[in-house]
């Protein structure tokens, strides 16, 4: 997302826009799974964009943020890794066959994920909206 525009509005905007882009990829994968719900032998797809998001924040474990150090005399608590570029990948789930026709799509699971992903994306969009509102207040010195 960063290379699209050279102007950066700060790490919060970058993270939130990455989250929305990841949720959009996830939505595409879920739509693909639901469209192929009656296709024999189809393998479900998923996007682990939250891991990619954590890696972009410099966290490899994906559940806790590590403390950064800038000297070898400091203690590093938690896991820490260099921030990676945000690059979520579409993964094909080849593990288990749960249906007679060889497909592993569970339409209930996909619908639940659809609702979850949509809620996540709308929350991130709302947060981004609030962040831009704050930036606008800073630019206009809160003169409405």
């Amino acid at each position: 997302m960063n290379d699209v525009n050279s102007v950066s509005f700060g790490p919060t905007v970058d993270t939130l826009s990455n989250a929305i882009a990841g949720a959009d990829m996830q939505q595409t994968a879920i739509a693909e799974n639901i469209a192929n719900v009656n296709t024999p032998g189809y393998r479900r797809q998923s996007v682990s964009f939250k891991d990619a998001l954590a890696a972009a924040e410099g966290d490899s474990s994906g559940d806790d943020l590590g403390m950064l150090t800038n000297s070898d005399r400091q203690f590093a608590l938690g896991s820490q890794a260099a921030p990676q570029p945000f690059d979520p990948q579409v993964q094909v789930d080849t593990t288990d066959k749960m249906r007679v026709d060889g497909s592993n799509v569970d339409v209930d699971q996909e619908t639940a994920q659809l609702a979850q992903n949509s809620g996540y994306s709308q929350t991130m969009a709302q947060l981004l909206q609030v962040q831009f509102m704050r930036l606008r207040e800073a630019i206009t010195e809160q003169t409405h």
Partner: protein
Amino acid sequence: MGFYSSVEISASGLSAERLAMDVIANNIANANTTHTPGGGPFKRQLVVFAQKPGGAPETAGDPNDIEKLGQGGVEVLGVEQDQSPDRLVFDPSNPDADARGYVHYPNVSVVKEMVDMMAASRAYEANVSAMQEARNMTNAALNILRS
């Protein structure tokens, strides 16, 4: 990845399920048809679904490599005939009866068609909700510009 790619995928699902619905309706309508242009009774028809390659260019292509099939939605490869045997009904008075007195009726089971129709209908609804959620997400993203 296009702005509306997930909507297009859901749309491919909608048209595929609608075609399945048309074929099922045709099967039910012809459940007792004993004459066809090709001769013999009507044969039950089945829709063959396949995942459509395409979508994201970096993942599209090689249909033999399931890892690289990409996200193009679903497509209908064709409508095939069910080759199971005809339903035989003993009715010597029927003008279509054969030498042994049996009438060859289509291999259509209306109960089975009803079950298939419900499956296609539910899959259609699932695609509609996927499309609605994609629209909600797009609306939320467009609302960032407002305020």
